[in-house]
């Protein structure tokens, strides 16, 4: 089952995947077909271009459960939205990795997850010298509801990353249970 690790450039996605993956982290070149929003002025049709994006890849095998958790570190810039659809299909959820110095980098990913109703948690990667925001301040800055967990995380520390993944799995279960409740149609 897929778990996405999404965040801005240089926020620590590669480090996070490497900290918890049981295999040496890999780079996977994923070809994605991008339906261009621009219409070709001459032909008058939408052109398609193929872009290749490098993803960080790592894995955690839950042997007793016959499951492989596949970790995909993906870039969080809005121009990669077209790619997230492929990745988000069948995914458990997303870890949005945030740097408090550049919280704006998370806006696009958060908006995407909310639109797609993909469960997500915010993991604030604690850089040295970064402002130690409180969870509520991060929550306010990103405009996310109180149900969405906001956690501190050290992307270098396996135990810290593990705690984030457990929080994501708990949250995903809670979200999906709520969606199943009879008061909601979906």
């Amino acid at each position: 089952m897929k778990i996405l690790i999404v965040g801005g450039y240089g926020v620590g996605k590669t480090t996070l995947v490497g900290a918890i993956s049981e295999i040496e982290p890999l780079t996977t070149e994923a070809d994605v077909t991008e339906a261009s929003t621009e219409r070709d002025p001459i032909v008058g049709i939408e052109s398609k271009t193929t872009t290749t994006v490098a993803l960080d890849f790592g894995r955690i095998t839950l042997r007793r459960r016959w499951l492989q958790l596949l970790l995909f570190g993906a870039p969080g810039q809005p121009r990669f939205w077209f790619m997230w659809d492929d990745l988000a299909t069948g995914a458990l959820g997303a870890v949005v990795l945030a740097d408090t110095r550049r919280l704006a980098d998370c806006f696009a990913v958060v908006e995407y997850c909310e639109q797609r109703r993909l469960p997500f948690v915010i993991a604030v990667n604690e850089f040295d010298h970064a402002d130690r925001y409180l969870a509520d301040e991060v929550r306010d800055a990103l405009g996310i509801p109180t149900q969405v967990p906001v956690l501190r995380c050290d992307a270098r520390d396996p135990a810290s990353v593990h705690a984030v993944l457990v929080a994501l799995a708990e949250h995903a279960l809670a979200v999906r249970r709520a969606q199943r409740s009879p008061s909601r149609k979906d």
Partner: protein
Amino acid sequence: MQDAGTPWDEDDDIDRLRLYSLTGGRTVPTRSLDLASLVHVASGDPPQMDGEHAQIHALCRVEARSIAELAGLLRQPATVVKILVCDLLDAGALSHATPDFESDPTDLKLLERVLAGLREISF
């Protein structure tokens, strides 16, 4: 090592040509595979293989591997690996492991398994 998100070098046409020579010029896999699709070796005698096909088969003999992992290990684009894996599936040399990518992320039983499994491991 590239950072995630760095576009592939557009000028690498020679490399691209070499890649597609691996697939006999095919650019579309015969089956619908996802980066998370898991495959392992099928029982029975493996057919004659060489090159990347043999590499993939050998890797999947050890354990089930995802398309993403095979692509990373072979250092080939995922599309190319999907085509090669389809060849092996069509030849009966590989078979699908648990169809993880088709797993329904709204399936509560499955989510409970994931959570229990994650809680069982410690770092």
